[in-house]
């Protein structure tokens, strides 16, 4: 009985310790090391066979040099700021696009809702990469969007959208839209329909009933949706590297290039550590929002 329980707990536990926690500790450690022209390309390395003395020198050689470097080189803090900005703007736009969809879904008839739900989820199952790729053909100078706008006569010269931040916004909104729609939909769907009737009975117009009742009640769903878009968008790599231009600074891309192109492992690790520190705040806020929701539901 106890052996079985131990086995049950230990297997996933040690898997995660070995392949999640320890790797992260290695990142942390390398971020405190110095770059070196060697294999692996950093120093110091821990040599346990040399006994206590080497462990002591190992720890004394660790420092925050890379983190100081991150603050000194404008590239990095600009990349962090611009990631935050891009993630925030696209989250807000996704909310604007997603809310009406969620609202309309919640008002559809019972027989339609499962189908609509499936239509929202379906893109999530198709390859992320392909969905981003689809926009390259649409947004390029000779792409479908420019062809359409020129055909209508709205513009004479093709607009440059691909390889700009605008394309990144579109990419993020497009790929993460289901994450925005679903929580808002579920908040709206469980709302008691008599609340609106009560508001109208008490003298609200349809619009003010929406604004005073529906909208505040869907707020937890909106908050959840915003976090679900914002958090992954912040560390996004594929979208800025396919749709963004050379001017698009996002921290995921910087990390990738620092690692693969510059082979500067310590700086790449430091970039990762700081990104994680930035992410902790929205993650904690998100958890708190979820917790509050669960308590309210009980």
């Amino acid at each position: 009985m106890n052996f079985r329980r131990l086995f049950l707990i230990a297997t996933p536990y040690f898997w995660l310790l070995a392949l999640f926690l320890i790797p992260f500790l290695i990142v942390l450690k390398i971020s405190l090391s110095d770059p070196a022209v060697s294999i692996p390309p950093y120093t110091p390395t821990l040599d346990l066979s040399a006994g206590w003395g080497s462990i002591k020198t190992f720890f004394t050689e660790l420092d925050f040099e890379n983190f100081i470097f991150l603050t000194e080189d404008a590239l990095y803090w600009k990349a962090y700021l611009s990631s935050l900005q891009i993630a925030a703007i696209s989250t807000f736009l996704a909310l604007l696009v997603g809310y009406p969809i969620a609202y309309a879904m919640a008002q559809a008839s019972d027989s339609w809702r499962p189908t609509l739900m499936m239509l929202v989820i379906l893109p999530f199952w198709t390859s992320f990469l392909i969905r981003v790729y689809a926009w390259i053909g649409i947004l390029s100078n000779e792409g479908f969007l420019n062809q359409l706008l020129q055909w209508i006569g709205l513009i004479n010269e093709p607009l440059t959208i691909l390889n700009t931040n605008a394309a990144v916004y579109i990419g993020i909104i497009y790929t993460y839209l289901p994450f925005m729609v679903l929580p808002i939909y579920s908040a709206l769907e469980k709302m008691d329909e008599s609340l609106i009737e009560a508001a109208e009975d008490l003298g609200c117009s349809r619009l003010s009933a929406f604004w005073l009742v529906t909208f505040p009640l869907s707020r937890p769903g909106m908050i959840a949706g915003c976090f679900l878009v914002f958090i992954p968008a912040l560390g996004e790599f594929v979208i800025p590297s396919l749709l963004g231009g050379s001017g698009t600074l996002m921290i995921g891309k910087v990390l990738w290039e620092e690692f693969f192109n510059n082979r500067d492992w310590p700086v790449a690790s430091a970039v990762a550590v700081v990104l994680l520190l930035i992410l902790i705040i929205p993650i904690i806020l998100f958890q708190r929002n979820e917790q509050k929701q669960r308590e309210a539901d009980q």
Partner: protein
Amino acid sequence: MNRKFTLFNATSLTLGFAFLYLPMLILIIYSFNASKLVTVWAGFSTRWYGELLQNDAFLDAAWVTIKVAAMSSTLAAILGTMAAYVLVRGGRFMGRTLFSGMIYAPLVMPEVITGLSLLLLFISIGLDRGIFTIVLAHTTFSMCFVSVVVSSRLVTFDKSLEEAALDLGCSPLDAFVSVTLPIIAPAVISGWLLAFTLSLDDLVIASFTTGPSATTLPMKIFSSVRLGVSPEINALSTIMISIVTVGVITASLISKRSIARKQGEERTAATVDASAA
């Protein structure tokens, strides 16, 4: 909700779904374009599908991807179900908070960080990188998704079913195999499917953790897409979209039908008491 379906609602649904589906539709249509220029229509052709099937690099990559996805999703389903069981039924044990933290953290961890940290681990323990390391990496993050799916099912699972099995003479293991597992099987299967899709889809983590010997399909697509749009990729995308669409629609029809049947039977069954009383 107050169900009054207005013009406004119809418009937002139409525009919303157009936004979601038009890009993919255009992709599909232009995969049948005869021209090499992707944005200029030059007549219907299946030429790019033929060329795709001749392209060994793509076929190899597809095969690697499927192998990785099958192995990692199966491992993830097993480990994730165990983890879910520990989370929901494990009671108190040393380091429980750390454990649940490690289950939830990978869900929000940026892929670049997961990939980087695993690569650094594999290097520092001197593991040869290839299919095996990608499988390890994919299993790690997708087991967390599986465990979330399975534990949400386990939370609503009536614990007295397990107690009844024990009461009727089952050992704890027998109770799990003959009662718990068959009942949570749909959740485990959807967890497996999710893990499979995540693995098929992943570019970033695979790029970090692979070695020169293994290239996955997303990596192949990414490197050719960086050079611009190509009709072969359109054809490949169309194939992948069709497989997923058919799969998801079939699955949802099956589950919709079985739910409807079950509800019908429950309604009929409930009338017995009313007529007996």
